[in-house]
């Protein structure tokens, strides 16, 4: 199996991504005779071998999809040995380091090889990644994974502490990436590793103090266009929202209105309504806006032929919205980029 080149059918020893639903995926390695337990029941590996990637596979209590392992899907599902870089940051790093086929990249530390997989994908077939990891087992695990994913030709894993001993590379790299607690210890050696014709460098650090020291080191060593950025992703949940129109009169209390089960507030209770905000309405939204049986009237208001943002009836204003609820990632790390120009 190769993360490098798409192929159509699942083979033994492939790593595949099982897609069960939103936020529910697993990476598994295909082995004849193996069984993987899912919430839908047992999944026999033998049943998957030979199927086309993208196929639906049935389990006793449901079905799932077999997806091809792109570096992005791998990043979302790989076994963590360390904190990893996620696709948002990986994208910016790849872009800012000008990665493309033929590029030679130096990286430390390898960690869980999340970024490494992505780099290799971007620089193959004629580029190369030299990745350094000071933890012996992690270095070995990374090397195994690259082998499993048929990427060994494009990468060299070295077990080494580059902060103490340097990269021992000279005039080879188009780009260097550092994800180290003490990056300034490795920056001089990184500079040496870069090609004489110049190149790009990136240092990823969670803490601003580290960034300050790294920037001072870059400036000291003659790097230019030193720039620190931060990139965060915000996801949207697309839903149909119904905002009920408030009633500015009181209903006859002798007439009782049938309440829809699990729906919103009692219209008679103006106090309850006054606590409602648009957000609360969204929480108990009804998916299809045509579902307004409990209202006294669902006739469309005297609105223009084109409802400006959504659809209005006497009872509701309905529209599709992209909502960001709850929490979002607020910080991963600061990305500092710089250029080394030729003398």
């Amino acid at each position: 199996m190769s993360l490098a080149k798409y192929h159509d059918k699942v083979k033994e020893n492939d790593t595949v991504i099982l897609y069960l639903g939103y936020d529910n995926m697993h990476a598994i390695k295909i082995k004849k005779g193996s069984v993987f337990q899912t919430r839908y029941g047992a999944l026999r590996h033998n049943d998957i071998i030979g199927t086309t990637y993208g196929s639906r596979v049935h389990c006793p209590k449901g079905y799932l999809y077999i997806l091809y392992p792109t570096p992005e899907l791998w990043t979302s599902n790989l076994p963590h040995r360390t904190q990893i870089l996620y696709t948002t940051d990986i994208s910016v790093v790849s872009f800012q380091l000008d990665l493309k086929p033929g590029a030679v990249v130096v990286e430390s530390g390898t960690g869980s090889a999340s970024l490494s997989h992505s780099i290799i994908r971007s620089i193959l077939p004629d580029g190369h990644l030299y990745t350094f990891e000071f933890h012996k087992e992690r270095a070995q695990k990374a090397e195994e994974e690259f082998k499993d994913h048929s990427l060994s030709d494009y990468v060299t894993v070295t077990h080494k502490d580059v902060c103490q001993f340097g990269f021992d590379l000279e005039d080879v790299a188009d780009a260097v990436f550092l994800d180290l607690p003490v990056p300034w210890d490795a920056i001089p050696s990184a500079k040496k590793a870069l090609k004489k014709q110049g190149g790009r460098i990136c240092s990823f650090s969670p803490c601003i103090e580290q960034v300050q020291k790294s920037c001072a080191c870059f400036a000291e060593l003659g790097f230019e266009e030193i720039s620190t950025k931060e990139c965060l992703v915000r996801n949207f949940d697309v839903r149909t929202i119904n905002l009920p129109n408030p009633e500015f009169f009181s209903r006859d209390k002798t007439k009782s209105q049938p309440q829809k089960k699990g729906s919103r507030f009692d219209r008679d209770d103006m106090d309850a309504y006054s606590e409602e905000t648009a957000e609360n309405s969204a929480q108990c939204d009804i998916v299809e806006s045509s579902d307004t049986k409990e209202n006294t009237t669902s006739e469309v208001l005297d609105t223009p032929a084109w409802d400006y943002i959504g659809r209005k009836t006497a009872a509701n204003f309905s529209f599709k919205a992209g909502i960001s609820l709850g929490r979002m990632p607020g910080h991963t790390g600061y990305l500092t980029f710089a250029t080394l120009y030729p003398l």
Partner: protein
Amino acid sequence: MATSSEPMCVDERKTSNVTIKEGDQAILKKGKTVRIFQIRKKRDIWLDKIKFSLDGAVGHYYGSTFVVKNGQMHKVQKTFKEAEVLGPEKGTDNRDLHDLDSNQKLSREDIEKMKKEGAKGQEIIEQLIENSTTFKGKTEYAQEKWVKKKKQKHVAEFTVLKPNTRLMCQMYHEKSPAKILNIRMDTLAQILTYGNVHAFTNVAVVDTCSGLVVGAVLERLGGYGKVFHFHPGERPARPIVDNLNFPQEFLDNLYNFPFCEINSLKSEEGKSDDLIDNSHGDSVPSEGDSLSDTAVKQCTDSNTETNTGGESTESQDKDNTDPVARKRKAEMSTREANKILYSKRLSEAKELLLKRNIDCLIIASKFNPTPLVTTLIEYVAPSRPIVVYSQYKEAVMDAYAYLREIGCLVNYRVSETWLREYQILPMRTHPEIQMSAGGGYLLTATTIVKEQK
């Protein structure tokens, strides 16, 4: 014509990238001013109110710095750092400082005189410092900031850079973001990564952003794999692809596909089985190649020679003696040749698309994305990413809603990214005062095998 699967060897690629050559597109960067020019000898250009020729740049490494002297470029070492001109004297705060023009004793004429006499940037700055009544009273930080500002104003140094996607995106985003539909660099970065754009993939791109996305995709493909550029009108407008100066091998893999041909592509689906049987994998049949080459050669040859074979008319002799008629005939021949080539490329593109093995579909256009994505998704292989970009969340949500109805995708995500830059200086670290208000929205998803109903 070289086959598309063989890009030039790695060594050639490396050396050709590194030095400035005549005919190259080059970026000239002076501080924040970034402009792109084509290097043509003995032709003057204007940059920051200075006129000069680009001859002096040829032969040097990209990334070299130059100054202009007497209309010519001269390579220099990088300029001094701010810290080198600062003396030991400094103030603590600005309570006694007044912002007056009379603070600086040197006049504009004095400075111009120094420049004409060939004074180096560092000397000018040192003179400005000496003639400033307030400089020594400024804090160390204020002094640094002041020197940086003077440097930008008076030191005419600039760097010559090789255009790449990052620089082109930055340039357009700063100057004419509307031309690239406000795609910010982090958004473009996500598009390329989530689309898994890399060597050996076939990518279909709907691009009305001056070719920024097509160019970025071509860069990531590195000559391996094909790009299908869907565009409105007859010819695609993609100046950024030209600026990126790709080798011909890359461009041979780029197919144009006008919107107006999409319906004919759909109607050819019935005949698609025949086409697949006749095709020879991804490469162009060689007989077809030489046919069109010969046709082009014949037509262009007729520009210079008398007509041979092919086009014999009764008035042939008369045409050959009349220069105006000959020119008109030559132009018509070239047009004919181009037409043949154009329709040949289009049939090739159709044949390839009908194989339904597109590895990535990217939509980044001013048009409503929904009809584009619901139509073009037919040609994408299963378990492949699609990426839809729009400046408007509503458009992305609409595409999402329609695709969900069709049911041909999983792993949906509607998102935007937020980008913030920082000023990192000792005791002066903070986010930049201004930041981008928005970089557009993305829908990403993965195709699946469409269940036969």
